[in-house]
């Protein structure tokens, strides 16, 4: 008998089916992958398991006994633990308080908080993940995004005798983690499996899934299409199942640029934690930025975009001096930016697609100058939407209603709206499904064909090697070297990020 079985799960939002027929079984002592493109219904299914969303119909059984999950509390009592994709932390509270979020604090005599016990228990949860460098008493706000994710992860591993954990549901847990941290998480998940616990693992990183999981269930268009043992499935099979067709190449072929002038020349640029940095970029070139998380990638991009005051150095854009004081200056100079956090930095979720796309171009004569011309705007947005292969019901659809990949395409359409000379990309394919990823790579290639230069910050090493001409490696706020991407091996690049290139070479 399976530990958990779901059958005939259905859910519709305002008549639109999100889940049509879902069946899933998870055994005790198994790491089970849940795969599928964005919009396939994985998030809805997880929300049903978490008691956040009520299904229209569902047959859910634990150890063969039917259960209903009416609230997050009930899910917790059943032994379910969740790490959600959009992780929420309270920056003003301590690490330990964040780990105990939603749980009962240990008390002295049932009244006053026992801070010592709280911190000790939290430290235990951190140590389970092998984390010793985070003090549970520290403010959450002082932690790097990677460390914050580790704290969120460890909260799932808090030991609770009165509701022991039986199933860990992990939605993109490694998105903000370094390779080392991910490895540590995998080790813990394997320990859980060995002890008879179960894991439902959601990730777009196929290699990770293939190495970690025992079985996989693939979802498409709100239905589970297949379940199989990992050992019997190839990488290509999985991708084909997810998108419903075969994909030959992961990255589109390099373009053959017609121009090759100097696009960007940076001399001694310093800002925030960014140490004086020099590099240059030709038109049509894609320069990758690699490095461990928090090595200064974000500062470099933000400084170029006018969001971080410069401490020194000069920038020349297309041969002309450029010194931005705000993102508005950057847009005017012909620089566009796709920020890392598309929901909090890239999109107005409650506004229509067309308002998102045209925002940076408002005031253009073709869009009516100071007065709004919604018809012209919608045409403009529809054209750009088609350029980026956006799938929507039309330019008036709300951004919030789109899947992650299509939301990212809206952000791209906005970035491309002014025909930029330089495009800054910060993790442009994070949380984006395979099909949309390929679309985005194709868009980038098409634009470089026309002369646009690109700076691509990414923690996805195959993406850097597959897309870039050259890759700059950053460490401790400075570029340590710039290497040609062609023929570069992943482990070589990773070692360079760690600063161990010479040991290998």
């Amino acid at each position, binding site marked *: 008998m399976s530990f958990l079985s779901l059958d005939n799960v259905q859910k519709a939002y305002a008549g639109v089916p999100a889940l049509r027929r879902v069946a899933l079984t998870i055994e005790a002592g198994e790491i089970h992958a849940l795969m599928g493109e964005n919009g396939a219904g994985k998030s809805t299914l997880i929300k049903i398991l978490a008691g956040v*969303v009520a299904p229209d119909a569902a047959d859910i059984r634990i150890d063969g006994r039917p259960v209903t999950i009416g609230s997050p509390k009930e899910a917790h009592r059943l032994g379910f633990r969740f790490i959600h994709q959009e992780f929420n932390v309270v920056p003003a509270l301590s690490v330990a308080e964040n780990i105990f979020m939603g749980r009962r604090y240990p008390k002295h005599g049932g009244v006053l908080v026992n801070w010592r016990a709280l911190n000790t228990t939290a430290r235990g949860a951190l140590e389970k993940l092998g984390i010793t460098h985070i003090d549970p008493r520290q403010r959450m706000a002082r932690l790097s995004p990677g460390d914050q994710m580790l704290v969120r992860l460890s909260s799932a591993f808090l030991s609770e005798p009165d509701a022991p954990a039986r199933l860990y549901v992990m939605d993109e847990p490694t998105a903000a983690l370094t390779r080392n941290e991910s490895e540590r998480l995998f080790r813990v998940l394997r320990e859980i499996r060995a002890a008879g616990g179960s894991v439902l693992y959601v990730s777009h990183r196929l290699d990770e899934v293939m190495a970690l999981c025992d079985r996989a269930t693939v979802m498409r268009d709100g239905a589970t299409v297949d379940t199989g043992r990992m050992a019997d499935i190839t990488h290509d099979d999985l991708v084909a199942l997810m998108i419903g067709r075969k994909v030959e190449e992961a990255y589109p072929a390099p373009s053959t640029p017609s121009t090759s002038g100097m696009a960007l020349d940076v001399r001694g640029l310093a800002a925030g934690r960014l140490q004086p940095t020099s590099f240059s970029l030709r038109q049509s070139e894609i320069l990758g930025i690699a490095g461990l998380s928090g090595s200064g990638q974000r500062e470099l991009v933000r400084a170029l975009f006018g969001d971080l005051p410069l401490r020194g150095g000069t920038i020349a854009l297309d041969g002309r001096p450029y010194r931005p004081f*705000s993102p508005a200056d950057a847009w005017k100079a012909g620089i566009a930016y796709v920020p890392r956090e598309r929901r*909090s930095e*890239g*999109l*107005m979720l409650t506004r229509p697609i067309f308002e998102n796309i045209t925002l940076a171009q*408002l005031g253009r004569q073709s869009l009516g100058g100071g007065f709004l011309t919604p018809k012209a705007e919608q045409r403009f947005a529809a054209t750009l939407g088609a350029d980026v292969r956006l799938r929507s019901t039309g330019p008036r659809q709300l951004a919030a209603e789109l899947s992650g990949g299509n939301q990212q395409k809206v952000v791209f359409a906005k970035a491309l709206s002014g025909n930029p000379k330089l495009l800054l990309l910060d993790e442009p394919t994070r949380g984006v499904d395979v099909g949309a990823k390929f679309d985005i790579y194709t868009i980038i290639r098409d634009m470089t064909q026309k002369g646009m230069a690109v700076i691509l910050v990414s923690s996805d090493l195959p993406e850097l090697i597959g897309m870039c001409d050259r890759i700059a490696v950053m460490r401790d706020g400075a570029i340590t070297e710039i290497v040609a991407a062609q023929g570069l091996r992943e482990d070589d690049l990773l070692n360079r990020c760690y600063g161990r290139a010479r040991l290998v070479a």
Partner: protein
Amino acid sequence: MSIGTLLRRYGTLIGFALILGFFWFNLPDTFMTARNWLNITQQLSMLMVVAAGMTIVMVMGDFDLSVGSAASLSGIVAGVLFAAGYPIWATVGISLLGGLLGGAINGVLVSFIGILPFVATLAMLTILSGAAFVLSGGKTISGASIPADFSNFARGGIPLGEIGGVAVMLPNLTIVALVVVFAVWVLLEQTTFGRRLYAIGGNIEAAYLSGVAVRRLKLIAFALTGLSAAGAGLMYASRVASANPTQGSGLMLNAIAAVFLGMTMSEQGVPRILATVIGVLILGVLDNGLTQMSVDSYVRQILVGAIILLAVAASSFSKRLRR
């Protein structure tokens, strides 16, 4: 469209219609008359102007608590200037400029210094109110110092003809309110300025990264709200032919309430100027009808507050049901 969607979308309008029906039924002779409605629009005109200004900042997700005392102060400034013998045009101009300036100070505090609107405009409320008392010496300015032409403006209007042998006119104050509503409608719904304010309200970080000059726009928006408050203060002073340092104090809460009532009519909970107009009308009609039915003014307050809560609760409840 399902019944749920209809209720969510038009619940507040249906409620408004029920209120109208209730008063029509209970006050068959006096409520649904041209005369009464022209009277209502005149009574409402000051609130309408302030609520229109409030909508501008609330579109960005901010609000301005100082509008009431800004209105009082602008009335007092006008009274003091009249007493000193300034002509009407100069007095009106200086008072309006003062409102613009006060609003701009709010804008600087909120956007450039980064104080929360609640704190910044609360402090400004106190300062402006204190200034009104200092300038007036705590007394009402009235009588001969207020020029007759100034107070006659509020009593005048465009004649619309006779109904039942009584002359009716479209009051000047109503015309001012209509002009302000139209101007704010153009600004918010037809210009890139308005779109950018909605963008700031939608996601301030994304707007900033898209090149929207967030700080400058916030400053301008708060300045315009201050201007509308000063305008309302002058309308009040003209209507009662006097200025008193607490004249505008009821405006702020009612203006915010009107915008909130309007927001219940929007699927996304976004302030829209025409929805604010409905919100103002609901408040005005309630006040007018309950007064005519001789409901005690304290009881009236309780009823009005309860109706606002009901509308906002129903709207947020129906939005939650949809999930």
